[in-house]
């Protein structure tokens, strides 16, 4: 039973992180219908910027965190400006392959600068954040992950519901032509969604880096695990991303704990195939109906 609850806790915390990573991904897809294969690299970029600031430049943790978020925001903005904007209206495969190429470029750059080694952050989280509950122990990182996940979920919920930019973004996602004709600045919406997505990615990169250590290959492979999460939740649903993340996180930890640890990495994709067969638009996704 204790083992079960420990797995449950781990699964929920990892799930929140997946959900957080997936949130940025959904953001991009929702506004510009781009499937971002470079998401894992954006995660890694955030983690490495933070690492450099904290260990090399010795910036205080809080400021380093803010600077990293700003840096990721600008990075997302530049990526959209330079690479994605010329491709608006081009066939799907070019957009997909462009993000794949970008992923490759980022990965190469990061490997050139930081190498393929495993780094760890200095311990800066206060240990009184951890929760001890009988024999069950929740490390501070997981608590932080859950707090950040909940915080940003509410923040985005409010942003999309009440702010004018959020409403613009929703309108562009719903119907690009109609929102253009109503005077929405679609380009700004695209740029903003990439920038916010990169910001969220950078933040989840930092938290993942605290848990697993920072390694280019590990962090960029998280970007691929986002796919089962978003498909389960529905490609265009922010809340679905969190719930999908939780389900996939739990599935992963329970498979790793009770069945076969080697199955852990492949089970999300097996689940993915089943979801696609049974409910292709996910739990909360918009169902597109077409008839011939």
């Amino acid at each position, binding site marked *: 039973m204790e083992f079960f609850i420990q797995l449950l806790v781990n699964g929920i915390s990892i799930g929140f992180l997946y959900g957080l990573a997936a949130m940025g991904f959904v953001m991009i897809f929702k506004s510009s219908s781009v*499937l971002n294969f470079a998401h894992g690299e954006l995660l890694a970029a955030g983690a490495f910027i933070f690492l450099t600031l904290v260990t090399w430049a010795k910036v205080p943790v809080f400021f380093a965190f803010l600077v990293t978020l700003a840096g990721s925001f600008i990075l997302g903005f530049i990526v959209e400006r330079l*690479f994605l904007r*010329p*491709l608006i209206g*081009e066939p*799907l*495969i*070019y957009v*997909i*392959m*462009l993000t*794949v*190429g*970008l*992923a*490759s*470029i*980022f*990965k*190469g*750059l990061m*490997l*050139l600068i930081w*190498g*393929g080694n495993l780094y760890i952050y200095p311990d800066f989280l206060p240990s009184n954040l951890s929760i001890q509950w009988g024999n069950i122990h929740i490390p501070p990182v997981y608590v932080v992950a859950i707090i950040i996940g909940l915080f940003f979920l509410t923040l985005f919920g409010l942003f999309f519901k009440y702010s004018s930019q959020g409403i613009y973004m929703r309108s562009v996602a719903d119907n690009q032509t109609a929102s253009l004709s109503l005077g929405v600045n679609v380009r700004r919406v695209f740029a903003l969604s990439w920038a916010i997505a990169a910001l969220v990615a950078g933040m989840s990169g930092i938290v993942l880096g605290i848990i697993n250590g920072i390694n280019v290959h590990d962090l960029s492979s998280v970007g*691929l695990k986002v*796919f*089962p999460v978003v*498909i389960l939740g529905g*490609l265009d649903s922010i809340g679905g991303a969190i719930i999908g993340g939780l389900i996939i996180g739990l599935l992963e930890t329970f498979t790793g704990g009770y069945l076969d640890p*080697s*199955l852990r*990495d*492949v089970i999300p*994709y*097996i689940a*993915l*195939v089943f979801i*696609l*067969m049974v409910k*292709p638009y996910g739990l909360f996704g918009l169902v597109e109906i*077409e008839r*011939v």
Partner: protein
Amino acid sequence: MRKLWFHPCGNFSNRYEQEITIFETDFGRAAALLGMVVLFTLVPFMTGPYVLYVINIIGITSIAAIGLNILVGFTGQISLGHGAFVGVGAYAAAIMATSLSFPFWIAVPVAGLVTALVGMVFGMPSVRLKGLYLTIATLAGQFIIEYILVHWESLTRGTMGIILPSASILGITIEGDRSFFFVIFISLIAMTYIASNIMRTRYGRAFIAIRDNDRAAEGMGIPIFRYKLLAFGVSSFYAGVAGALLAFYLISISTEPFNLGLSVEYLAMVIIGGMGNIAGSVFGATFITVLNEVLRWLTDFLMNAGILEGFQLNVAPLRELVFGAAIVLFILFEPRGLAEVWRIIRSSFRLWPFSY
């Protein structure tokens, strides 16, 4: 009696046969024949073992890239699992050659058929899915196949890999780069011939119709699902044959090379070469293979020259960087690929000196 003629200055076809003809002039046909003669009589005897090895690898990758182009460029179904299918072909051939002791000339086509079946299984989601969703489904297929290859140890010997016996056809043992050159390039020419002719039949036209507008295609009475499955099957058959040839050529195989990176590499070949263009796949395969070799050579050179002494540079990051940059630059500046560049060069010669 046929007349020898040069290319006209524009597109003046007025019959469908002129539109689908492979060689527009008899000079083109003669040039292709001459090219083949040069390929088989001069290339294998005038090149060193390393260059011949690279050429052979180009030949094998070209077969797989043509297969992917049938699926992506002609049918419009984006697959991120082609690398895994090549792996299935390689393993099918290896298992048949060792456990079942099939001869080479049976093992290769049967490996192709096995891979075609596997490919059709993983093409099944295309019943309900298209576009992005199908791409993600093939991505899942890539990971699942990779997992099976590593973990079904009784069949694939896991991470140990399999060592194949030497290949032979009609009692002649095929060994070394030179004899494999003939096997690989005869297969490549046969596969190119088949692919370009499939695209001229009703099947090829159905593929193109599905790519251009699947709803309209269904409205015109094309059973979309059956044709999508067929495209997956044909494409995987090519992947399987390429994998089988690779397994016999490299003698030993392991699961390592058949990862997502390989699938991405094949997609890059199709895009860089030119989508929906058979010759383009060969250009793309050549480009990527040569790029890999040049980068390997370049890093070795820089290491030996001592310029990067303190950097601990190895080939991986530089390769990733240049590879990604190549994809991005091609998509941004020449989305129709090398085939289009080649067409522009040819037509500027043809219209010289009065091009405008």
